[in-house]
């Protein structure tokens, strides 16, 4: 991460504290509590943006910031690109990753109106394979509550989410399928798909 917006004094102090923690205990394993706390922070930030009443285009940019701070964007992009991720050079992958981040922020950000006046309650976490799954319940207006699972890993050194499971529907699997279809349409040309992604979502 080369660029990290530090908007507030608190954010800066938090960053210092996080850095100190990392320096003292470099390989401390994530616990259920730290995984849950990370998701709670991400959810709080998303609702702060939604309730700010900013213009949609501005919101998408802010969502992208939340995504950059709390998600493992590289892992998501690598997984979504599938086998092609191993064939492209680093510079192309970095472009794909940036395009993917904007595309996801727009695609899911567009749905923010469904969340106005609603809430997400973050619950407990359980360990799955090499990561943690944090449970939550989304209470949306006029709908039955939905179960949303957040898959969180600390492979980057910080707890970051890389997948969302909404009532059994796996977002990463869905994006894999989408990118596979976009690649097929472009006959496997990753650069063309990058260009398409910049306009998609």
């Amino acid at each position, binding site marked *: 991460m080369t660029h990290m917006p530090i908007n507030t004094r608190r954010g800066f102090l938090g960053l210092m504290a996080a850095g100190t923690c990392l320096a003292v205990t470099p390989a401390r394993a994530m616990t259920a509590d730290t995984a849950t706390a990370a998701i709670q922070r991400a959810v709080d930030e998303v609702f702060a943006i939604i309730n700010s009443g900013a213009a949609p285009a501005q919101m998408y940019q802010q969502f992208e910031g939340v995504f950059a701070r709390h998600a493992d964007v590289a892992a998501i992009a690598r997984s979504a690109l599938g086998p092609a991720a191993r064939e492209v050079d680093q510079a192309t992958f970095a472009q794909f990753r940036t395009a993917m981040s904007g595309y996801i922020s727009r*695609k899911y950000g567009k749905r923010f109106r469904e969340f106005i*006046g609603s809430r997400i309650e973050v619950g407990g976490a359980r360990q799955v394979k090499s990561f943690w799954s944090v449970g939550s319940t989304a209470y949306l207006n006029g709908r039955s509550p939905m179960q949303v699972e957040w898959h969180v890993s600390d492979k980057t050194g910080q707890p970051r989410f890389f997948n969302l499971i909404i009532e059994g529907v796996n977002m990463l699997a869905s994006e894999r399928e989408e990118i596979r279809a976009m690649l097929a349409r472009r006959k496997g040309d990753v650069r063309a798909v990058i260009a398409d992604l910049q306009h998609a979502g």
Partner: protein
Amino acid sequence: MRLAGAILLVSLAGCASAPPGEIADPYEPMNRQVHAFNKSLDANLLRPVARMARLGDGAKAPAEPWTKPYPQGPGAIGIVGNFGSNLSLPGKVVNSLLQGRPQPAWQNTARFLVNSTLGLAGVFDPAGEEFALTEVDTDFGETLHVWGVPSGAYLELPVLGPSTERDLAGKIVDFVLIDPLDNVLTDEQKLAGTAARVVSKAGERAQFGSTVDSVLHDSADSYAQTRLLYTQHRRYELKQEEDVIDPYAD
């Protein structure tokens, strides 16, 4: 009906199997044609009707389609939907009993009794609002699953949308055999019930509008997305194990 019977037999006799994590889709070319039909049906009929329903349902006409959150309360569509889904409860009770699950059978029975009386023939939902008796959704497809029948090949049905061989067989049995109200209701009442279910379908289209738009009209391969979403959600409903993606293990 004979075709349906044949499909039922095929489904129950030898279901297509797929490697774990993959969806058996031997009928993909046919399914894709049906999908194209369903998609144009949605674009030309359901989407415009749903949009009107949402506007007529208490929300003021917004300048652009998604500037307002969804209206609160049941509204006209919600009321018709309540009526239709109340009539579907006895069938669900029978299915829960066939699955050996008395708890949901009891819950749906109590819900049906409360809403048919206090809820004025199911128009309102006091059972859910006052007594926490929410609907437990089930169907004969789930009953077949409980009995050990595998899902079989993926199918996209005209109008009805994504399904599998097993779930299609389930739909037919639910429709033709299982509904205990068949013997009680008059033809007009049954027609009203069916009409109510169609209207509530339009209500669902309005409520899940942006999800449907995103999947059906914004994705690169809407057929593949629909297939994936249906399969995953169905497995979740049936409490089957989900595939886990671990990008750090690759």
